[in-house]
């Protein structure tokens, strides 16, 4: 119980819920485990349906707690993920730099985000396995950037194995969520997502979240 017992309460100013999506085996779990536990597992079991991870970070002068929902890549599990899309404040859309089909499937993933998540939700495109891409790259940096631009996202290449850009990726999505929050408050958009089962509680874009 060491992990759970290590005071999961703690202090924070904001709680953001982030859903991590993308094809099976692109490296979603490795990315989130590197962030939350700072390790890389060479032998990691497939994620079944959904997994939860937590990360506490500092953004500017704010203490932010990220609730990260790591999803299974197989399409069939998308029906299980619906509740998590609805409650999310940000999306990390992942593909494998060494596996072109996972890049080609991005359109389908974006479509799901449009259907299930808050309209205009901040998204970040992540090219995983940049270490392996040194020898076996199947998606160029330029085309990934172009795709991200077209879909109004930032793009970042990460390596969970070599600890490259992992923190930066989560800093970036946090930044985007803060900016999005500002925008929404400015334009006075509706904030509480009624009917968002399960996850609504603290996942409110408008109000400052007091979590503890």
């Amino acid at each position: 119980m060491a992990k759970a017992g290590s005071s999961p309460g703690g202090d924070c100013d904001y709680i953001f819920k982030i859903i991590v999506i993308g094809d099976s085996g692109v490296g979603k779990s490795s990315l989130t485990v590197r962030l939350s536990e700072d390790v890389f597992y060479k032998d990691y079991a497939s994620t079944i349906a959904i997994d939860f991870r937590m990360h506490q970070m500092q953004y500017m002068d704010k203490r932010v707690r990220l609730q990260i929902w790591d999803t299974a890549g197989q399409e069939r599990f998308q029906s299980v993920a619906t509740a998590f899309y609805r409650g999310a404040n940000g999306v990390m859309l992942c593909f494998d730099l060494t596996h072109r089909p996972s890049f080609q499937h991005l359109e389908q993933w974006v479509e799901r985000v449009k259907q299930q998540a808050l309209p205009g939700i901040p998204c970040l495109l992540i090219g995983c396995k940049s270490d392996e891409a040194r020898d076996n790259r199947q998606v160029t940096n330029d085309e990934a950037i172009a795709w991200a631009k077209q879909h109004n996202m930032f793009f970042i290449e990460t390596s969970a194995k070599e600890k490259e850009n992992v923190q930066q990726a989560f800093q970036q999505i946090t930044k985007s969520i803060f900016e999005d929050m500002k925008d929404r408050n400015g334009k006075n958009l509706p904030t509480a997502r009624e009917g968002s089962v399960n996850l609504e509680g603290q996942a409110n874009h408008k109000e400052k979240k007091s979590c503890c």
Partner: protein
Amino acid sequence: MLSTLHAEEVHVGGANITSTTGRRFRVDMGTGTASRGDVVRVSEAQGEASCASHPSDQPVFSMEEYLPCFDSFGFRVTQDEKILEQQYARAHPTPTATVRKWQYVLQHWNDTSMEIKKKLCRQGIPQQYRKQAWSRFLLGGSGKRSRHKGGEGGSYTDYRDAPLADRQAGDIIERDLDRTFPTHQLFETGSQGAGQRQLRNILRAYVNYNPQVGYCQGMGFLAATLLLQIENEENTFWCFCGLMEHEPYEMKHLYQTGFPGLHMHFFVFERLLQQTNKKVYQHIHDDHNINSSFYATHWFLTVFTYYLNFNLISRIWDRFLCEGWKPVYRIALALLKMDRALLLSQNTETGVLLVLKSIQENKDPSNMLKISQQVKFKTSFVNKVKRDYTASLNNEKQ
């Protein structure tokens, strides 16, 4: 540090050894000291523990340190864990009477009442008889139940060798082979060993056997569990079919598109939790809006094979294969019961979620099994809840 851990683990029953996923092993590749394929530094979730226990004055890079150790089922463990397992086995030999009872039951399978089988399975099937006993449960008494679907099924090799109509299923199977029991010597990551080949064959064959259900992530853990006990590939395939297709297991309903069977189990489990552990139910579900799909999905989809130690998995499956889903609910309820105080002391959603996430870790197996038997509820109640669930679905449709 190690000696304390050691003493505690002996005290708790010795089988609290490792998990099937290897998630307790941290392989730190961020240090740049190890290259891919080499043996890398392995440290346990709580403190350092290498495969060979070495006093700190010994050289750090002794070869001995890197010799892999495996438990009796073939999972990679630390040397301390290996010693614990051996000590436990020596301290708890299977009683001769139990062995004789099982010999008798296997010879008189159809004449042995369910009550007797249930009683014996709750005590645990001796490992040497699991292969036979599990096959009997899964294939029916005659051992032929699944072999022919609707009387005109094909042979195993037909199903295995036919091209897959669903190419995507084939791709996902390939990607999952490395990630199913990755710490087992037969399935080890990057090994492309015998276990991975057999697993591929079985999973592909099932896609052809029941294309409507096809392949879904999680099935691999079920098939691999059976493969480790049944051993023979073809027999494992038919046992897997029994598990997916037949009462009382019918796991195909859990994996079908939309996961109808899984949602049914969630519904039943939540009602049982409400009934047997109201405070915890209210805390998790009402106060923090966390429903069972957040934490119990892999409990049901993989029947606890995703996390637990394989010895414990086998004990749970002895009961599951004999009795059906009731023991699975019991184990799930026992987990929450064991961590009741810890759960209730959490006052944030994140806190509750983190406890739930690691709730299957560091539990004493014999205690867990014992507590699960103390969770009381009636089969008639479960059946009523199932009827309520079906009725509520029908109402929704109308």
